[in-house]
């Protein structure tokens, strides 16, 4: 099982982020730190101290949790879950809140062994436009701090396709990133989420986004560069040095069970999906009364198949045709014969070893391919 813990606090809101968050409010952190142990305990008991292979603290900004809060939460995890001896335990951090080596050492002392830093860009102008509270210098300092605290598994997040960004600038970002020798990189194409200030700017015509073809080049050339540097692309947006693929994230794409705790967290256990209330107090009230986790919805077989196709095609491994056949009784290749032929001709897909895989160019238009495939 994968364990995900959601930390809903941010110091300030980024202009591209659609997540509902409010400025950090210590009273709310108090409520959170009191309720989360109850939820951990509840599920630990309910699931009979289940085996957990990976833990992931995501947000929001988990690194905003003060040490006193951590001291209440972290020991509960070990107590109520059976953590694998080689557990992958990730903690997301923003550069500006990960400068304190002592703080990072505290994390390590609880068992955290992987840090994911939201660097996003090395261009200060770009960071300002995104509303990020840090600059490039801070990001470098954070990387140093993480290493100094003894972490050997570090991931950096970047965004490409930013306003005013050209292909050259993006490749420059990647070069600098690679010089820092992180074990893992996530490179996300900028998504204009409806309702965000950035999307509003775009609608008002105030954004100079790279053209579609330039964005395509950023993606392909960026991925090629990273592979030359020893980072293998194992998913649409994920690159890792050998052996450092995120086991937690890969678990989602492989369709494994995951338990999500904290406000707004989603769980999928034995085909039943459940989502916690997003509001911190509403969620905390449920955790206190032990009514958390009620009201899940069982996925239909069709939904599970659709998710399997959608998620497996995100990965470099691709969709295993024999699994599809076992799930549906249908031959995926026959069902999509003429489309697959055309996609192969355009080198958008590859077929080998019983797997259907998207190529880099295929990843870039994966939504269109998923829309067209019959499954």
């Amino acid at each position, binding site marked *: 099982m994968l364990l995900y813990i959601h930390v809903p606090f941010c110091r300030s809101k980024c202009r591209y982020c659609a997540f509902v968050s409010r400025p950090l409010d210590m009273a709310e952190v108090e409520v959170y730190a009191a309720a989360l142990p109850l939820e951990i305990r509840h599920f630990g008991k309910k699931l009979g101290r289940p085996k957990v292979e990976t833990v992931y603290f995501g947000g929001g900004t988990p690194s905003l949790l003060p040490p006193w809060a951590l001291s209440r939460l972290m020991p509960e995890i070990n107590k109520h879950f059976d953590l694998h001896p080689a557990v992958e335990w990730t903690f997301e951090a923003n550069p500006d809140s990960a400068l304190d080596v002592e703080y990072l050492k505290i994390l390590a002392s609880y068992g955290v062994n992987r840090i994911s830093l939201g660097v996003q860009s090395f261009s200060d102008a770009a960071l300002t436009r995104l509303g990020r509270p840090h600059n490039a210098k801070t990001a470098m300092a954070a990387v140093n701090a993480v290493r100094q605290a003894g972490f050997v598994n570090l991931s950096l997040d970047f965004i490409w396709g930013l306003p005013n960004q050209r292909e050259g600038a993006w490749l420059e970002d990647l070069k600098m990133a690679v010089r820092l020798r992180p074990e893992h990189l996530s490179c996300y194409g900028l*998504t204009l989420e409806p309702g965000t200030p950035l999307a509003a700017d775009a609608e008002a015509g105030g954004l100079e986004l790279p053209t*579609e073809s330039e964005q395509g080049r950023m993606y392909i050339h960026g991925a090629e560069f990273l592979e030359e540097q020893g980072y293998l692309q194992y998913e649409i947006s994920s690159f890792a040095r050998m052996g450092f693929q995120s086991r937690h*994230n890969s678990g989602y794409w492989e369709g494994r069970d995951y338990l*999500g705790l904290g406000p707004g967290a989603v769980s999928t256990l034995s085909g039943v999906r459940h989502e916690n209330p997003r509001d911190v107090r509403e969620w905390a009230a449920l955790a206190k009364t032990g009514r958390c986790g009620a009201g899940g919805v069982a996925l239909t077989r069709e939904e599970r198949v659709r998710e399997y196709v959608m998620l497996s095609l995100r990965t470099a491994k691709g969709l295993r045709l024999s699994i599809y056949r076992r799930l549906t009784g249908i031959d995926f290749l026959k069902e999509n014969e003429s489309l697959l032929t055309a996609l192969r001709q355009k080198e958008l897909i590859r077929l080998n070893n019983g797997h259907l895989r998207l190529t880099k160019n295929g990843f870039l238009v994966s939504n269109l391919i998923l829309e067209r495939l019959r499954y």
Partner: protein
Amino acid sequence: MDTSRIRNFSIIAHIDHGKSTLADRILEITGLINPRDMREQYLDRMDLERERGITIKAQTVRIPYKAADGKDYILNLIDTPGHVDFSYEVSRSLAACEGALLVVDATQGVEAQTLANVFLALDNDLEIIPVLNKIDLPSADPEAVKKEIEEAIGLPCGDAVSVSAKTGINVAAVLEQIIVKIPPPAGKAEAPLRALIVDSWYDSYQGVVVLFRVMEGTITHGQRIRMMYNNAEFEVIRLGAFSPGPKDFPSFGPGEAGFFCANIKTLTEARVGDTVTNAVNPATEPLPGFKEVKPMVFCGLYPVDAAEYEILKSALEKLRLNDAAFTYEPETSQALGFGFRCGFLGLLHMEIIQERLEREFGANLIATAPSVIYKVETLSGAIIPVDNPSKLPKTQEIAALYEPFARLEIHTPNEYVGGVFKLCEEKRGIQKDVRYLTATRVVITYELPFAEIVYDFFDRLKSSTRGYASLDYEIMDYRASDLVKLDILINGDPVDALAVIVHRENSYKFGRALALKLKRVIPRQLFEVIIQAAIGTKVIARERNSPIGKNVIAKCYGGDITRKRKLLEKQKEGKKRMKRMGNVELPQEAFLAALKATED
């Protein structure tokens, strides 16, 4: 019943000039309908009609009325369909009346179709009572409109009634004029039965319901009757009148109107305009004016999903039961698969049927651009009708091509005359007449190819006259034309459903416009789309939509999966309305692009 106490009338009006509202008020004032039970446009049975404000099927309603002279009368309101596509049906409804109310919007003036129907009424020797409606509106100018009616129709308007059908002002005066001015019906009760079929429709419980007006003789419950067009005989098993709901009557004499059921299975056995007579001792001559209506406009209708073919087929069968003017037969398109070639009286008729199919039968449709019937003279001298451009024989087999011409009458305020001329010239029109009804209102008559009307004529006329013009047309004859088939190729393959027949002179311009229009309506997609227009083997236009370069969900972790899956499901659902051709997906609009090719 005493014919001197019967008045049969219909209401002639342009769409939106208030016909249905006036009918509503009459039903209310005579007490036939309790105001509590009133709903707007009471006589229009079908949802579609109420929504679009058009009466498609005729209706008759029997209204008892105590007049100012203290006597009891029966008024039969014989309502008519109100659109140019249905002028034959209108003429039959009018033939069943002795008089008509001419309702004109006092804020608008006379429109082309109104005028056409008034002339139909005059042909049938009807007494016409002018009624000026909407006088409650501040912009109403009844005096000017009266003058216009006098000048345009030559109808004295001294006694014209000014009303507001909406508020009910003066509607009572209209009823009195009906009694005083419209003559009672003539016709002998003892003569052999001759009843005019005004309309008929199919009812799943009673079979065909026939609306009729007795011209002579008597029709009785249980009587054996004969349809004079095909000599089929039936027994009247139900006889009645709508008043406003159906009420049974034992018999009807001359001048009366009502409905009967006689175990009739199909509408073709009870055609509008046919004469009903006795089976025993029948009349020798049918009533004049019968015509077999023929569809003039054709289009292909295809299910978007081939699996829905049977649903579409049974939906068409059901529609045909209720609409003798509509025809369909199976057809196969390389591009669209199995479907039907459907024939309609005109464009409105076509739109109504398409809408009804989608709405009542839930069939997801692709409709191809409408076509008229061309006549092809082959080298061997045979004449072949062609209702589908893709079926046109090869150029080397054609000796001559003929297309239907229509006589078109356009009413417009004088400031738009220039625009109307320009449009008609562009549409290959031949000017026949320009007549000033008043100093500011003009009637323009053109002869032009019917195909040009079927294309975007209505919309173009509307935009070049800011909606102030109205038009009426009738098909005249076939004339030789220098026509060519324009093929459309998508990624190199001709798409039969996109082929059009155009005049050679316009073909290059049209081909370029159509290719450009297709480029705009076919969305960019996963694969490149190349659109070519060709005449014979010669490509005359080429457009290209490059493939989409980026469409990817950047992040998809545990909390995102449901949302992303639903997004994808929604997108896939949206694609179901697209027709896939090879690797290209074509939206419904692509098949109608020919209609809008020259609009901008």
